[in-house]
Each structure stands twice: as C-alpha cells, then as structure tokens.
C-alpha cells in the first residue's frame, strides 16, 4: 500500500483526471497473444500448413491488397474450409463464455458465478440428449441444445421469482434445483439408451467439430447481440460494485440492469453451447485471471476477457486435436486440465481479495 505524506504529494496537481480505462499495454499484449494462437491454430494439424504461406494467403484476402500464390489449391481449401472456421468458432465460443462469465459475476457480485449458473448447461445437455437419442438429424442437435438451454433458464427464472421475488440468492438456488432436476431426467434417458451414451457423452464434454462456416454463421447474430449488450453495461457493472442499495440511490435501475445482462449472457451462452457442447471453466477462469492481473473495472475486464477467452479456447482446441492425433480429445477436458492449475497459480501469487 502506498502512503502519501502531506509534504510530498504523490501526484502532480495539474495532472489531468481520467476515468478508468483500458491502457494500451495490456490490450496490445492480449491482441498479440490472440494473433499468435490464431496463427498456430491455422497452421498446425494433420496437414501442416506453412506459416509464411498462410500469412500471404490471409493478407491476400484483405480488400485492396493483391498478393497471391501463398498456398496451393488443396492447402487453400484446408485453410478456408477447415482451419479458419474452426479457429473463428473457437474464438467466438471462448470469447462469449468469458464475457458471459464476467457479466454473471458482475450482476450477482459472486465470484463463483459462471455462464452455466442458471440452468443453461443442464437444459442444453438435456436438449442435445433428446436429439441424439431420438435419432434426429445431427444438424438439428444445436437447435435442440439451444432450445433446452433457454428452457432451463426460463424454468430457473420462474422458480426463482415464485420463491423469493427478486432476490439474487433465490435465483441462484433455483438454478441449482433446475440443474439437478434436468440432470436427473438426462441420466434416466441415457440409462435407457446406452447405445448412444458415447455420443451424448462426447457432446457434453465439448468439441469444436466444424465442417465449413455453418456453425459460425448460426451463432454469429446471438454472439454479436449478447456481446454488444454486455459491453454496453460495462460502466453500470462498475456502479453495481457498491451494492444494489447504493447503486439504486445513484440512479441505477438495478433490477433492469441485472435482467438485461443475464438475458444477454444466457442467450450468448446458449448459442455457444449449442455448437460446442459444455466447455467448462472458460467463463469462470478467464475473467478472474484478468481481474487479478489488471484491475477490477469491467471496462478492462470485459474486453480483455473477450480476447483472452478467445485465445484460451483456440489454444485448448489446438491441444485437443494434436495431443493424441489422429484422435481428438474433448476440448472441455483440456480447458479444465489447463485452466485449473493456471488459475490456482495466479490465485496464489496475487492474493487479491475478490
């Protein structure tokens, strides 16, 4: 802690006063990390692509730039139909989960809040299970998962309202009850259909299997809207850090802020879960690491969480598909496997209270 003796002012009295903002240093660092991870994700794989060729090919797609001949025809197809969509999907899902986690932690003022808090995961899992068990075309699994996720949150919200009005804790407890209930149904359904167990299990553990751009385009509108709404609340999330009563006396419609942020985070999460399965730990670990390393303002936490959540998931996915190549590990296993120890390390070394 700094002490400021009155004889020697700590700051120049003429220095301009500025609201908290994201400074260039951490921003550039996060962007660089993301760019490096993206490049690795695009080049490494069963068919290794040359880094230089990929770069030339990418630059060639910038409007107004005319360079050609980076890659041959087959490599170009691998890049644009396999690698780039997968990296982009990983960025969207990872960034979305991290922002949603930060948003939940902000409105609930609870460090344990994560994107799956209010029954999204259990609902989506149940939806996907039904789709897979009933033999529905696999293309419809995301739709079932999305619908199930929204149903889970709606059930949580209705139960929370009927139990305890607008209290935060009643909402969280309702989420626990709904999750347990949905999980019970899902377990029963799986028990009765053990032949599809492996497929359901694989979906639940999370994976970024893509073929082309369909998944990216499917979730793009949800992720864009959810991200915009949560970012719009970056200042109000800071105001909420003084507690709901004080925020109310400062003119914050706290109930509306909570509803909007929760809706946006849930919608984005449901969309991400629908195409990727239940990838755990990103939403809880990334915002906390950002918070511990840089600051507690959501003007810093949200953008850095988006960038680093994106980088984290692309990196985890890269590891998932190369470690036991040609096989593939569920990426959700890796996010927890890498994330948990790293999280513990940061937690121990900073010791900042939440």
């Amino acid at each position, binding site marked *: 802690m700094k002490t400021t003796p009155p004889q020697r002012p*700590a700051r120049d009295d003429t220095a301009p*006063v500025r609201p908290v903002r994201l400074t260039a240093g951490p921003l550039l660092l996060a962007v660089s990390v993301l760019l490096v991870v993206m490049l690795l994700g695009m080049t490494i794989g069963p068919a290794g692509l040359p880094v230089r060729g990929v770069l030339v090919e990418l630059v060639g797609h910038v409007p107004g730039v005319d360079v050609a001949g980076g890659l041959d025809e087959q490599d170009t197809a691998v890049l644009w139909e396999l690698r780039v969509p997968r990296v982009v999907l990983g960025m969207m899902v990872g960034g979305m989960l991290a922002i949603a986690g930060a948003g939940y932690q902000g409105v609930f003022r609870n460090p344990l809040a994560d994107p799956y808090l209010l029954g999204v995961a259990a609902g989506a899992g149940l939806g996907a299970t039904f789709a897979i068990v009933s033999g529905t075309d696999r293309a419809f699994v995301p739709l079932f998962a999305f619908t199930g996720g929204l149903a889970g949150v709606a059930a949580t919200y209705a139960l929370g309202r009927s139990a305890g009005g607008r209290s935060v804790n009643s909402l969280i407890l309702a989420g626990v009850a709904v999750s347990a209930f949905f999980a019970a149904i899902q377990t029963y359904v799986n028990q009765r259909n053990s032949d599809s167990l492996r497929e359901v299990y694989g979906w639940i553990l999370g994976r970024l299997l893509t073929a082309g751009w369909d998944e990216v385009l499917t979730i793009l509108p949800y992720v864009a809207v959810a991200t915009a709404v949560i970012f719009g609340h970056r*200042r*109000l999330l800071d105001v909420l850090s003084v507690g709901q009563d004080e925020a*109310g006396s*400062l003119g914050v419609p706290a109930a509306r802020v909570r509803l909007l942020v929760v809706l946006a985070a849930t919608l984005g999460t449901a969309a991400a879960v629908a195409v990727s399965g239940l990838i755990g730990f990103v939403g809880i670990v990334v915002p906390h690491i950002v918070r511990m390393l840089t600051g*507690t*303002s959501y003007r810093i936490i949200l953008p850095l969480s988006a960038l680093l959540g994106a980088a984290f998931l692309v990196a985890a996915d890269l590891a998932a598909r190369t470690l036991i190549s040609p096989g593939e590990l569920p990426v959700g296993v890796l996010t927890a496997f890498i994330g948990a120890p790293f999280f513990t390390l940061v937690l121990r070394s900073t010791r900042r209270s939440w």
Partner: protein
Amino acid sequence: MSALAVGRLDVTLLGRRVLGDVDLAVPSGSWVTLVGPNGAGKSTLLKAVAGAVEHAGSIGLDEVSLDGMRSRERARQVAFVPQEPTRPDGMNVVDYVLLGRTPYVPYFAVESASDVAVVEELLDTLELRELADRPVTSLSGGEFQRAVLARALAQQAPLLLLDEPTSSLDLGHAQQVLELVDELRVDRGLTVVSALHDLTTAGQFADRLVLLVDGEVVAEGPVREVLTEKLISAHYGAAVRVVHDADGGVVVVPVRERTARLTKRTDGA
C-alpha cells in the same frame, strides 16, 4: 418555502411498523437533523426519502412528488450518503467520485468530459486531488468520508441526505466533515437532512431538530426546544444535564445517577 415536504409517511418492514404518520417540512437551504434513540426510524426515514424503502404517504421536493419518479430522475434530486458506504475493491478515488455522475450518463455510455470536469472541481473543493489515484480501500475514515461526500455532491442534487455521517470518525474529523457540509450547504444552496446520534453535535450543526421515537415525531423545532432534560430523559432513558453555553449553543452532558446515590449512602454510614 419548504423544499422537502413529507406527509403522513408510513413504513412497515417485516410486519413491524417502523414509521407511523410522519410529517416533515424542511425549508429550502436549511439543515434539519433527525435525533432519537436507536431504532427510532431515523435511517428508515432518510431511506424512504431516497427512494430505497417502500412506503405509504407522500414525499415531495419543491412541490414535485418524488414518488413514482424514475430512479435516474430521483438521483438528480436527492443525494444520499449511507451510514456505512461500501468500499469497492480496486476502485480509485476518481472513479469512486465519478459514480455520482451516474444519473447523467446515458444508459449504454461512459462519462463525458463534462462529467469529469464536475468531478475535478469537487476533488479540489474537498481536497481530494492528492488522493485521486489512491484505491478507496486504502483511505482513512476521514478521507473516505470526504470521497463519499464528493460522490454525493457529484449528483448535483438540491437535497442532501446524510445518515450518521460521522459514526466512524473521531471527534476532530467529525467536526471537519460537518463544517465542510455546512460550507457546501451555504455555497451551493443545498438543503440538508441528516441523522445524528450525538446530541451536542446535532445541536451545533442544525437549524432545527426532529426528535423521532418509535417511528413517530415527538418533538420538533429549534435546538433549544428539542434538547431539553425532560424530553431526553423521557425518551432516551438517560440521565443528562443540558448546559446552555454563552454563544447560544446547547451541550448535552450525560451524568451518572449512581454516583449521586453512592455519595448519599456514604453520608448515611
């Protein structure tokens, strides 16, 4: 003209009637202090005016009803300094004071240059500029109370409510904070309503006192009429002597009745 007009205010919390039929008129630009024993309803009355407690009855400011006003509009009319303000982890003084600009910042936006200018002026007035970059968690009690005042003043509301603003301060800092409030009240034409438990201090810094007991107003008026030995011993269950000093001030001194009894017994032996 009365700035704040509270009529037949009733508050029930958890089945208990905390305030009953309270009427209160606070003239514009004056300082009215609520006194009364613990649990009398002083804080609840302030919170009701701030819009933080559900209530029956009417609350108006300059003939305009505050009830049904959107929280944002209300926060431009009423600034509230709570008894124990939260110190948000990791937030520095500038950003803490900027929180007071919330009712002026559009919903999805952040502070504008004019918001920053308002805060800069307040940092100078309240001698907080040196502390501007310090986290609020590192401030002393007196420093933090100045920051809380600055945040409330940043709301630029004509009515300032203070709930026990000196409860965590020593004597010297308590006086400094209250003097500061009085200066700001005169300079900016603010109307101040405060709750204070120290009766002598309450008498020194208010134009009028309101004595609340069990959620009802039992006495109201100039300091000398409310701070009487009779009223205080009746409602506080305390033994006090009220001393009037030469400057027209009132000093409430607790006395220990037991001492008198002991002396008597010694005499008899």
